[in-house]
């Protein structure tokens, strides 16, 4: 607690971004889907599928990376005495924001992490997504400037902060009890994909190890993709942005080395070319992340260090994935889902409602 945290320095955050930028394309090389070495939204969607919360057959797998993110952050928080169980800052609002963040992300087909990984893999559609993300976050900063906030959290029982880490540990135990069986789409309580992105994954132990490592580093460095853009827009601060850009540059270089770079708009892996909805989907996500105070990765790391409100946001995202696929809101390589467009509109209206009404003058 007393020494200087080197990961929170400029070079620290750049190093962490570079690390993620190298590891994500490597995970792709080792089996993860195209331009999806790591995608927090997609992987939480796969977890929802693995649990049967939705039944989209191509996206069902309990992703060990997500488990690792939370547990890695928990380990770092305990080692450096930063574990602080806290909760009570408008949890239901955070849940709703999580739901719509996921709905928006699945219209674009990726979270901010995957947006840069897609760009680093040559997918031009990611440019629209990143522009949309920036636009959504910019709207969020306008609310922040006008006093928007979700209120204070309270210190709570240690156990409360353990809830999401324990849920993740439970997922891991389920995977060990009911591992994937070749050619079967179900083992015990878990669902698995036989084809599509859900069937593509790096070996469990490797995914988990990388997840733990990134969770540890991200907790120390406070790596946040939404915060990167928000701080630049709101304060002119480029601290977090330098980490985000390092991720982009190093992922690009790693893709070049691994021959995974393919430039273009059409035929990109797990992507569609409907520019307006790539933009709007990520705008919705960006606004929801800004209102909730963190990108989907950061919410996992916060949950790992005891933030129960971030944990509620994560649960909102997992439930949101179920809703997205059950309601036909999620996009596919063919384009946006049947009800994807109205869902984005409703999501933006809900976020604007929250932004306009949850204001408190700082006394």
């Amino acid at each position, binding site marked *: 607690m007393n020494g200087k945290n080197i990961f929170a320095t400029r070079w620290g955050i750049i190093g962490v971004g570079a690390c993620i930028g190298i590891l994500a394309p490597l995970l792709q090389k080792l089996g993860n889907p195209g331009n999806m070495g790591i995608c927090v939204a997609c992987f939480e969607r796969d977890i929802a599928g693995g649990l049967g919360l939705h039944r989209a057959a191509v996206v069902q797998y309990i992703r060990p990376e997500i488990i690792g993110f939370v547990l890695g952050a928990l380990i770092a928080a305990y080692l450096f005495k930063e574990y602080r169980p806290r909760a009570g800052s408008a949890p239901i609002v955070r849940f709703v924001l999580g739901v719509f963040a996921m709905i928006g992300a699945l219209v674009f087909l990726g979270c901010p992490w995957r947006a840069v990984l897609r760009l680093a893999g040559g997918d031009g559609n990611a440019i629209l997504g990143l522009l949309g993300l920036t636009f959504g976050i910019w709207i969020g900063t306008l609310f922040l400037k006008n006093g928007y906030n979700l209120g204070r959290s*309270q210190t709570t029982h240690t156990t409360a902060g353990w809830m999401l880490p324990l849920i993740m540990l439970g997922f891991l135990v389920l995977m060990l009890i009911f591992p994937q069986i070749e050619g079967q789409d179900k083992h015990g309580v878990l669902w698995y994909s036989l084809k599509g992105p859900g069937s593509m994954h790096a070996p469990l132990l490797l995914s988990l190890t990388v997840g733990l490592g990134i969770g540890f580093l991200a907790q120390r460095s406070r790596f946040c993709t939404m915060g990167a853009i928000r701080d630049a827009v709101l304060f002119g601060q480029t601290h977090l942005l330098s980490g985000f850009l390092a991720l982009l540059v190093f992922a690009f270089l790693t893709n070049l080395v691994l021959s995974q770079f393919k430039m273009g708009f059409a035929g990109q892996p797990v992507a569609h070319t409907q520019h307006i909805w790539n933009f709007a989907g990520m705008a919705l996500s960006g606004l929801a992340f800004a209102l909730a105070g963190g990108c989907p990765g950061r919410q996992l790391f916060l949950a790992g260090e005891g933030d129960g409100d971030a944990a509620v946001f994560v649960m909102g995202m997992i439930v949101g994935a179920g809703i997205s696929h059950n309601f036909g809101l999620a996009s596919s390589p063919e384009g946006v889902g049947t009800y994807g467009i109205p869902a984005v509109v409703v999501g933006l209206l809900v976020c604007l409602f929250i932004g306009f009404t949850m204001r408190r003058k700082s006394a």
Partner: protein
Amino acid sequence: MAATVDARGLSCPQPVIMTLDEIKKGQDKEIIILVDTDTSKENVSRAAESQGFAVHNVTPEGEGYRITITKG
């Protein structure tokens, strides 16, 4: 008398916004900020330094920290 900003329990980026608001008022050469996470401690310190303030003192207080910043 130094101004005090109580940012305990508030999530990112509220502590920084509140600190910058207080700095913008320009009334005090010394500002005390109360935060309850290490992330907020780092963010507030970084923001203060970018505004020409020096982080004079950081002491643990309760579940968090008391940060004293002074105009250099």
